[in-house]
């Protein structure tokens, strides 16, 4: 197959969204790292220059991804997965420690973050396993295997420590749900999170009272129409109350203070203004500063390179995890809403593309791509705008980081390569 025909059939809309995001991302990295002494764009010792280099490298990667045979990815996905896991393991003896986390290999000219690579490999491997003719997702054993595929890299990454990146792998559950994992699993998961949050926010007592009240009302209404299975119902209630009690225990005795602080900041648990101020200055400093920076942008922002808080370095990690706050300060609501809409449209477009695949592997991989990108977007932006607790993961295509940009690009373009081939039956 010639590269030319691939370029003809590739989904240019997705490519456009991709290019918009990378461009906006680089512009804001430039703004948050440039100094007035050295304003050159092509300065490869500066971070924005390095990022420009990786943007070039990504184009090269795109060309390679598109040039490769389409069934190459499906055929070798298990191997990729295996290699990725070995590389992850290899971090423990050979990795380089930056800011307390052993998450990088020092390759001389740049630091490779293998967890980014593992995301691509895991998405491929999961698609491969689920699309196998022998896999039946209704079977408990197969469910377990599928979950194991995304659990292994997560477990390998947690002790680096990099819990944020580990969390990303659980987003691949969306793929399994799409392929038939019963949705009540999701219901249970949702219930667990709900009880957890409700317990912290309102306390076990109020939770129990309101639950009891709801059940009584439910009984009174439904009494005539059907017979309520009292015993399972009651035991479910008891389980909930017990779980709620255990949440209290875990929160107070298992969690460390910094975890508790994050939750109390997120859920606004702390009522004492003095302590709140303390939390704001320490654990909540990043969130507070980034919220303020975004807020100060207003509707139209302060203008490119005019962000005073950005220039003053008030928001830490502003070129990487907190890049969105630069956008907020300098481009205002117009900029932030453009980014949010571009991401949303990209995701919806990719889901649409995935659904139209004839090959189940392509569809599942497509879902994997959306899930991974989406969870990054959700957690990162949610954290920067102060509605989710602080979890350090980058914003795809936009945050500074060579490995990130390169592997997010590869992740996306493997799917676009698969999609470009969807009408061809011959694999």
């Amino acid at each position, binding site marked *: 197959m010639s590269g030319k025909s691939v370029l003809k059939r590739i989904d240019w809309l997705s490519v456009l969204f991709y290019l918009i995001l990378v461009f906006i991302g680089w512009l804001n990295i430039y703004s948050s790292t440039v100094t*007035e002494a050295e304003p050159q764009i092509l300065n490869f010792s500066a971070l924005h220059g390095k990022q420009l280099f990786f943007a070039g490298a990504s184009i090269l990667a795109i060309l390679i991804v598109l040039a490769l045979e389409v069934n190459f990815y499906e055929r070798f996905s298990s191997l990729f997965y295996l290699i990725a896991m070995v590389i992850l393991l290899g971090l423990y003896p050979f990795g380089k420690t930056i800011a307390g986390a052993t998450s990088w290999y020092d390759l001389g000219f740049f630091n490779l973050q293998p967890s980014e690579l593992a995301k691509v490999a895991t998405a491929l491997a999961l698609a491969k396993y689920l699309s196998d003719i022998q896999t039946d997702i209704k079977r408990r054993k197969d469910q377990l295997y599928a979950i194991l595929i995304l659990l292994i890299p997560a477990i390998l990454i947690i002790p680096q420590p990099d819990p944020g990146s580990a969390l990303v792998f659980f987003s691949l559950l*969306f793929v399994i*749900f*799409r392929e*038939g994992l019963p*949705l009540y699993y*999701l219901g249970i998961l949702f219930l667990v999170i709900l009880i957890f949050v409700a317990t912290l926010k309102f306390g076990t007592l109020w939770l129990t009272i309101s639950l009891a009240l709801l059940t009584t009302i439910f009984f009174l209404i439904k009494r005539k129409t059907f017979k309520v299975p009292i015993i399972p119902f009651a035991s479910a209630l008891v389980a909930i109350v017990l779980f709620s009690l255990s949440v209290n225990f875990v929160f107070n005795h298992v969690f460390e203070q910094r975890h508790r602080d994050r939750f109390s900041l997120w859920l606004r648990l702390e009522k004492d203004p003095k302590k709140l101020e303390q939390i704001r200055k320490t654990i909540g400093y990043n969130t507070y500063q980034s*919220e303020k920076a*975004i*807020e*100060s*942008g*207003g*509707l139209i922002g*302060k203008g490119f390179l*005019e962000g*005073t*808080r950005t*220039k*003053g*370095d*008030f928001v830490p990690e502003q070129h990487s995890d907190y890049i969105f706050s630069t956008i*907020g300060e300098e481009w*205002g*609501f117009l900029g*932030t*809403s453009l980014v*949010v*809409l571009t*991401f*949303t449209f990209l*995701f*919806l477009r990719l*889901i649409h593309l995935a*659904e139209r695949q004839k090959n189940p592997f392509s569809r599942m991989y497509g*879902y994997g791509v*959306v*899930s991974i990108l*989406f969870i990054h*977007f*959700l957690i990162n*932006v*949610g954290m920067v*705008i*102060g*509605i989710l607790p602080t979890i350090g993961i980058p914003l795809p295509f936009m945050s500074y980081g060579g490995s990130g940009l390169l592997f997010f690009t590869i992740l996306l373009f493997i799917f676009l390569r698969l999609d470009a081939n969807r009408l061809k039956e011959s694999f």
Partner: protein
Amino acid sequence: MKRLLLSSLVILIGITFLGRLSYLQIFSFSPDQIAEDPAIKTIYDYPERGYIYDRNGKLLVGNDPAYDVMVIPREVKPLDTLEFCSLLNLEKEKFIKQLRKARIYSPRLPSVLVHQLSKEDYGRLQEKMRKYKGFYIQKRSLRYYDTNSGANVLGYISEVNERDLAKNKYYVQGELTGRTGVEKQYEEILRGRKGVQYIQKDRFNRDIGPYKSGSLDTIPEQGKQISLTIDKVLQEYGEQLMVGKRGGIVALEPSSGEILSMISGPTYDPALLVGRKRSRNYTKLYNDTIANPTWDRSILAQQPPGSPFKTLNALIALQEGVIDVNTTIRCYNGFYVGRSKKGCHCGGGLRNVNSGIYKSCNAYFAGTFRKIYEKFETTDEGMDVWEKHMKSFGLGNYLGYDLPYGQKGRIPSKEYYDKWYGDNRWSSSYIISNSIGQGEVLATPVQLANMTAAIANRGHYYTPHILKKIEGEAISNPKFTEPKHTTIDRKHFEPVIQGMADVYRKGTARWVQIPDIEIAGKTGTAENFTKIDGVRTQLTDHSVFVAFAPVHKPKIAIAVYIENGYYGSRYAGHIASLMIEKYIKGDVTRKDLEKRMLEKTLEHEYAKPYSGEEFKINEYVW
């Protein structure tokens, strides 16, 4: 369902994010960005406050440079403490203590180490300062008074408080603003406009460079110098005469309404409210609630005007045609209101306008007052006419002069008495005391002076004002340059002025004549009361005097109000004559009188109500 799960979640999150962002960036957004931005430091460059001169170009208020030695504790490097302390004339213990205090306040922000060095010390230190890292000298400017008088007129400046900050966005914490007097009234002219410089900082509070390359910065605008209408010499002279007395003196130039002097006694040296001892002195002055030196009596003390008020009643009667110059009224050493007799000191006999004024006959003016009311069918109508005429002299309302404080005084209206006695339940005999300036009428010294100026001008006055020039340019505000006309025709003034001139020649003030100057005046003796332990007690009369001179082409109109000074010519009359002589001749020939007035005090009178003992009033002790 399973197909829609992820798409709907994506849409839901998209909407949530847009909602949160619009909340942050549109609803919480505050447009006052620069002030709140921790990344921008604002540096102000303060212009020098404008100088204040008197009407003849003599300096009243200037500025004095003061040099504070500042310290930024974090930047201090090890130094030769002994040498530095000897340079600063500071003991080593004190130095260490100050440094510790500064560090506790803030290691990063400057604190004052030594206040207000002298110019000589500054010169000596300036060159050597470079050696000592973390220390520098900051120049400040303090108000300097080239006079020890006029404290209440000139006013003082002090640091802005929360209320000022809320009211006026211009100020920031720690800045100075005019608090009273001219300093407050002409704050914006004197102050100028501070220059602003914005500096971009990083999160370690280090300067990175000018914000927006300095495009928003402004340079300071100098404060303007102003000239007041005050005559420095007269003002100082008047204050010397007021030593030991309470009351107010206001002198005006009738032809322009310019305030030549505005004296309140007791007063204080304006220099007390400058510099290091300011707050201690202020508390002392403020807590003196008996003598009340910070209360400007010349514009705030509303008192019964007493006999000078008779001149206005005469004018109104002439204007209304109820008397002419030949109309006579007999004085029976007093007059009757119903069955009760009120006294008069004029000696009795037939009185007309002329002798009524120069002998200050109560009976004549009570009769005249009745005639005004008898002209009309109802007392209400008479009251309205009387009130209208009175108010046309600037009484009973704010005069509109350019000082920040004032009092209305009082010209009672029919509504006032209706409230007091009930509708139609009062007549002219109820209010007869107003004919002689007692009763319900009240006026401030500045109103009395203005009334006198209106008489001197034969029927019009210019609103009194204190500002003469800004940067050498005369004011053109029509409020002050256009005359206000009274409701009395010009022709009626001559007989009244004749009476006032005779006050000097042969009347109640014949003792206070000034050689070569013809004066028209009117004495006043105002009864007054206070409460001692809840009992209404009469005190020694207030001594009142209004005058203008020369009678033809008047140059000065003056009102002198001396609390508890007994009869009109005793204190007020003498002081007024000295002031007039000083202003017109430039010097006083009657040295004996001058000496007596400078030395006499009324402290013994003011002590009486607080003595706790029985006391006599209106004693003839001289």
